[in-house]
Every structure is written in structure tokens, then in C-alpha cells.
């Protein structure tokens, strides 16, 4: 249980608030475009922290490589699907929210 292990735990625990704020954003934000931000940004940072923490605690480089691959895949998937959903929403002529 060295320094790296504790640092990893701190990183994991740091990641959780990002997930929670992502969910709060999903629930509280006013329209689809703002909710996209909450999801694709907060959650991926949270996952990044978790991956970072787990990498610091990992036993070997292959585990780290797999963790990073998983994170990269989630990043690609969520950015692409965010783009597709936003484009579909724009084509549906959904007005972006603005402060009344």
C-alpha cells in the first residue's frame, strides 16, 4: 500500500463527483443541447479520473493499456454520438435554449 495506491484512491474518489454532477446536469439542464454538455464532458472526465486512479494501482502495463483503450473508446463513442444526436436535433428544428 504505497503512495501510488493512495494517490489512485484519491483519483477514483475525485472521479465520482463528476459522474454525480453529470447526472444532476442531465436532470436539471433546460434543453437537449445543454444536457449534451453535462453528459459528454462531465462523465468522460469522471471516467478519466477513475481510469487514472485504477492505472496508478494496476499491476502491469497491459492492464494500464487496456484501461486506456477502454477510456479512448468511450471518448470516441460519446463524442460521435453527441455529434449525431445534436445534428439530428438541429435538423428537427429544436431551438437552443436561451435565457428568457
Amino acid at each position, binding site marked *: 500500500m504505497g503512495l501510488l495506491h493512495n494517490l489512485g484512491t484519491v483519483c477514483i474518489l475525485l472521479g465520482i463527483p463528476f459522474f454525480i454532477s453529470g447526472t444532476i446536469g442531465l436532470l436539471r439542464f433546460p434543453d437537449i443541447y445543454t444536457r449534451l454538455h453535462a453528459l459528454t464532458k462531465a462523465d468522460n472526465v469522471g471516467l478519466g479520473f477513475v481510469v487514472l486512479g485504477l492505472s496508478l494501482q494496476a499491476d502491469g502495463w497491459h492492464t494500464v493499456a487496456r484501461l486506456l483503450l477502454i477510456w479512448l473508446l468511450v471518448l*470516441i463513442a460519446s463524442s*460521435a454520438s453527441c*455529434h*449525431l444526436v445534436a*445534428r439530428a436535433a438541429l435538423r428537427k428544428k429544436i431551438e437552443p435554449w436561451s435565457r428568457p
Partner: protein
Amino acid sequence: MMDAMGIFDMVLALALPWLGWRLLASPDLFRAMVLFISLGLLMALTWVRLQAPDVALAEAAIGAGLTGALFLSALRRLERLSEAERRLAFAGKREEEDEIPPERHRRAKPVAYGLALLLLAVFVLLLAWSLAQTPAGGGLGPAVGEQLGQSGVRSEVTAVLLNFRGYDTLLEVMVLFLAALGVWSLTRVRLPLQDEEPGPVLATLVRLLAPLMIMVAGYLVWIGGSRAGGAFQGGAVLAAAGVLLLLANVTVVRQIPAALLRWGLALGPLLFLLTAVVCVAAGGNLLEYPPQRAGAWILLIESASAVSIGVTLAALYAGGRPPEPPAQDRGGEQGPGRDADADAGGRQ
């Protein structure tokens, strides 16, 4: 005193039926489907908690990925077909409230409920009886553990699937084959219901993900011998690659000759049957491999079935047999399908 995992179990176990209930009660069909996709995800987590990684892997590929795409595309097709239906499905109230069943349906309902309750009661009784009958000590677990050395693989589930109860898997591959045959004999594939170009982001996504999916499918089949993974999981991921390519309307997919698809569908079942026949001819039981080469046999059969399962599931998603080659009846002139192909090719 419950620890965090205990609460985790409780939340998950409560969330599953609640989700199921909301899913069926939701007025909007689309929302019901999204809830179903989420249910698949939670089911995968449940399998992990119940120490069934093989099942979790299959659920992750099928429940969270494939079934969602299947339902969403079917909903779209239904909606397109009739505006009235769209109003029904998206009206914001339950179609059951909107639609009063004819008299005989109304009378049939209590009967149906009575029968269902009876069925459920019988099921619960059977379950309790079988639980009471099961000897303590993990059912067939120890027996499988004893024989594992002879099976040629190190993963228990794979040993059961392809060696000890290989005929189950043989029949299951046949069921898939029959499903594909059924769909192919019913309809042809329509031109995809999609009226906008995929765009560069999707093209890049497909270019990145599809090869990776195929690679991961191979990895899962390979790793299936020693731990979670195998033909089903590999096949499901392969099918996901196929579905992604079909969705993005990549030209390559539509240029695959139908004969190749047919062979892809038949490869797994054929090889499986051939093995069974060879095993019987060599004097053994059905699918009783020679113990020293069992590992190689299993890997061969698994790879072939993975390809077949992948092709079958993707074909089921496409929803019909491949369209006729358009050049035939037009005497060399390009048909409408051809034109669409050329368009798709020109865009990329």
C-alpha cells in the same frame, strides 16, 4: 449490517422490476425501448454480481447493443409505414386507453389472467420443488470440475457448451439458422430507410470501430477457451460490427455477394453437423471429440459458429434476404439499387 455491496445488490434488484414495470406502463413506445436498452445494461451488471461473466459478456453485446438497434430500426420502419400508427404510438397517452377491444377480447381477458396466474403459480411451485430437490453442493459444479481436464478447454462454461452438452449448442446454432431462413423466405431487404447522408463523423467512427469490433470478436473467441468469452460473445460483437456497417450504409457491405452471405450463414451449422457425423462414424457418441485434440476441435467449431452467428444476427437486423442483383432484368442497365450504390460510393 449491510456493506456498500449489499446496498448495491438491493438497489439493482429493486431497479430491475421497477424498470420493467415503467417500461410496459410507459405511454410512448420509443421511451419503452430506451428503457429496455437500459434494462439490458443493468442486467449485465446483475450477471456480474451473480458471478456469471460469460452471460454478462453476452448481455453486454446483445442486450445493450444489438437489441437496441433492432428495436429502434423496427420502430422507425413501423412509423414510416403509417402516419396513423405514429399518432397512436406517440400520442402521449396509452394506446390501450385509446383503443377499446371488441367484446370477445374483453371477455377473454379475465380468462387470460386466470390462466396466467395459474401458470405463474405452477412455475413458482415447480421452482420451490426443484430448489428443495437440489442436493447441497453446487448442483453439477463439482461434476464439471472433475471432468474439466478431459474437455480440452480450461473454461467451465465453454466446456459445458461445446463438449459436455455440445448437442445443445448444435441445436441452438440450428435455431439461429432457421430464424435466418425464416426471415429470408419472408422478405427482401428494402433500401435503407434513411434519407440523409451519414456525414464525415459517422464515416470516421465506422472506420475506427468496425475493425476494432472484428478484432475484439476474434479475441473473445480465442480467450473463450480459458475464461469468459466464446462463440456467442464473439459472434454478437461481430454482428454489432455488421450492424454498424449496415447503419452507416457502407458500400462494401452491400457489395458482398449473396452467395458469400449464404455460405457464412451455413458455415457454423455445417461444420458442427460434419463434426457430429465424423464423431459418430469414428465410433464415439455424438460430438465426442478425441480427448487429446478436443481443444483444437472446439476452437475450430467455435470460430466457425462465431462467424455464422455474426452473419446471422446481422442478417436478422437487415430483415430480409439480399436484394436481387439489379443488372439482370434490365439487360446491363443500372437499376435503382445500383444507382444508390454509386451515390453512396461517390459521397465517400
